[in-house]
């Protein structure tokens, strides 16, 4: 199913925001890669930096935020040649407003946003908005683009695609709007689809339909998906691999089976304990994670999770930042699995 070649590679990404209150380290040293055809789930509480990571890949971070370190590499596959001749594009070096990144956006990496209500312009028709990307990336004229837009709408299961083309967003239901959004993202056959909480604003039934649809489309189109959510249930259904993020850092990176069967990081464990499970006793109380997410201006020293961690090792966890450790098949960033860190610094 998966291809050994990575499609996109993120290395040591740091995206910081300068605001009046101070420096927000929204993404603070994140590394991962996505292979083509694979689905990577990104899980974390709100504010953990998962959306900013996605925006960094698209170079859509607001002006207040800057990629200060790290590298994002995109391997452009030429479908006509064999895959070894992938063209290497350093996304971090591109001008965020320049033509190269614009060529990638929408055409090769597409994005679906959380709120289908506000993601469409209220004064343009759906057809106008979907065909725009096609005209930009596929050299189509308006008529061809609208034709293709109708096709794509049909593909995402829209009942009357031609009618939807002339509709305004406010005339569609939330589910229909999100289908249109997905159709817009898929219209140019991107090699990577970034879905930023695409079902959070929808009801459960619609959510199930949209998830089903995305899985089906991935199978037929062979694209990679980066699926961002705070919902562990959704990610279990969608993803091949999962990264769990906390305060701008990855705490655990594992396959979906490993993560759910054998979570390593205390934060992952706590997250899993906080969702109801049908295979557990019903009279067992759901646990919540103690404490609150610290405010983003004063991220704790050492391991960012240490103030809330039940397995805290004083003198180590609050001082030294944990490195990634390979445990079984998972990558974990926790001192519990590496009791003798390379350099023990003196407490401040």
């Amino acid at each position: 199913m998966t291809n050994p070649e990575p499609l996109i590679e993120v290395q040591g990404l740091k995206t910081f925001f300068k605001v009046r209150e101070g420096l927000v380290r929204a993404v603070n040293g994140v590394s991962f890669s996505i292979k083509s055809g694979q689905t990577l789930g990104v899980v974390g509480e709100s504010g953990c930096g998962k959306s900013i990571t996605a925006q960094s890949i698209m170079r859509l971070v607001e002006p207040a935020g800057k990629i200060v370190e790290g590298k994002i590499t995109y391997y452009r596959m030429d479908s006509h040649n064999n895959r070894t001749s992938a063209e290497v594009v350093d996304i971090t070096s591109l001008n965020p407003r320049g033509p190269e990144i614009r060529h990638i956006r929408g055409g090769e990496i597409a994005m679906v946003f959380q709120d289908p209500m506000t993601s469409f312009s209220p004064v343009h028709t759906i057809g106008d908005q979907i065909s725009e990307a096609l005209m930009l990336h596929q050299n189509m004229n308006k008529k061809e683009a609208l034709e293709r837009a109708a096709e794509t709408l049909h593909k995402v299961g829209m009942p009357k695609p031609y009618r939807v083309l002339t509709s305004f967003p406010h005339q569609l239901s939330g589910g229909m709007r999100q289908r249109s959004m997905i159709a817009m993202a898929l219209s140019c056959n991107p090699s990577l689809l970034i879905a930023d909480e695409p079902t959070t604003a929808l009801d459960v039934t619609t959510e199930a339909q949209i998830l089903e649809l995305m899985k089906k489309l991935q199978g037929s189109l062979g694209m990679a998906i980066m699926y961002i959510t705070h919902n562990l249930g959704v990610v279990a259904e969608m993803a091949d691999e999962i990264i769990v993020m906390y305060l701008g850092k990855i705490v655990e990176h594992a396959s979906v089976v490993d993560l759910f069967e054998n979570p390593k990081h205390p934060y992952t464990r706590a997250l899993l304990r906080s969702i109801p499970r049908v295979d557990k006793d019903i009279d067992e109380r759901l646990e919540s994670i103690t404490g609150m997410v610290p405010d983003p201006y004063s991220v704790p020293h050492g391991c960012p999770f240490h103030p809330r961690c039940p397995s805290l090792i004083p003198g180590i966890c609050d001082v030294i930042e944990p490195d990634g450790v390979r445990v079984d098949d998972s990558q974990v960033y926790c001192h519990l699995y590496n009791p003798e860190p390379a350099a023990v610094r003196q407490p401040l």
Partner: protein
Amino acid sequence: MSELASPMIGGRRKLTQAEKFYAASQWQLIRWKFFRHKLAMVGMVILVILYLGAIFAPFISPYANLYKSEVVYSPPQGFNIIRDGKLVAPYVYGSKMEVDPDTYIRTYKPDPSKIYKLLFFTHGWEYNLFGFIPTDLHLFSVEKGGHLFLLGSDDLGHDLFSRVLQASQISLSIGLVGVFLSFVLGCILGGLSGYYGGTLDTIIQRVIEFLISLPTLPVWMALSAAVPQEWDQIRVYIIITVILSLQGWCGLARVVRGKLLELREEDYVVAAQVAGTSDWNIITQHLLPGFASYLIVSITLSIPGMILGETALSFIGLGLRPPTVSWGVLLQQAQNVRTITINPWLLTPALIVIITVLAFNFVGDGLRDAADPYVI
């Protein structure tokens, strides 16, 4: 939780700071944000000075309605504190008038041979401070024989500085009184409209739409032209204020109605209702704080409109009439281009109007930003 937080003792103080912020009441937040707004603070200081000037106008102004017909159209004068290279008590020079034989334009030149000392806290003409304390104390005056016109003098030899101060009592108060009228009308009608809805709401909304679509000034002109000539100053003042508020209440009524309707549907109000909170508590604890800030902002921003309206009406002679003095009345002298070309200081009241309106707009803007709960 406290045990968990204990390793980071350094963060303790910061936490309480944050807690203070979260625990602050709405009004405290507004006050903090307002005091941080630089332009608003500038506006606030200007307004305080202007209103203090109006309140203490007779005390500060040296000349009242007395005029010196021998010093018509005197340019603004300054005073000196240095004589023969030494620092001395403030004094003014006497002035010599010359009339151009061709144009009949008078020019005044300082006459260094005559020197008059500036006197402070002197006794002069009598007045009632705050309207009820009889006194004759004045901030300053000039020794007999000399005069000091800080802003120049007008066609009759009135001291413009004294006149501007005197006029500020009318001009600055008409904004407040007018807005108060608008406020009462706007709250009652907007409240009724928003509370009862239905036909009453429709009627009030139509009336507002009608009034707002009118070209204000021609209507004001027509109405104030109908004010009988023989009416006394106070009645004219009141009726002009009423005319000015005729449209002013519409905006406030819209704010009140809109906010009432909006807040009634707000989840937190519904939640309070469901929780069994009494109507009185809902109104005072939830609804009122919800839109009181918007009201204050609208009020602040509608005061300048009133001041400008009065100035415009009085300027063309259809508003307040002499002997009532307002900034607009003072500007009547400046209608003629030739007059103001020769005596540009007659435009000072205009400058003061602009500064006043600017100050109100700054404060209003600051209040709006401060009252917006979504802007930190």
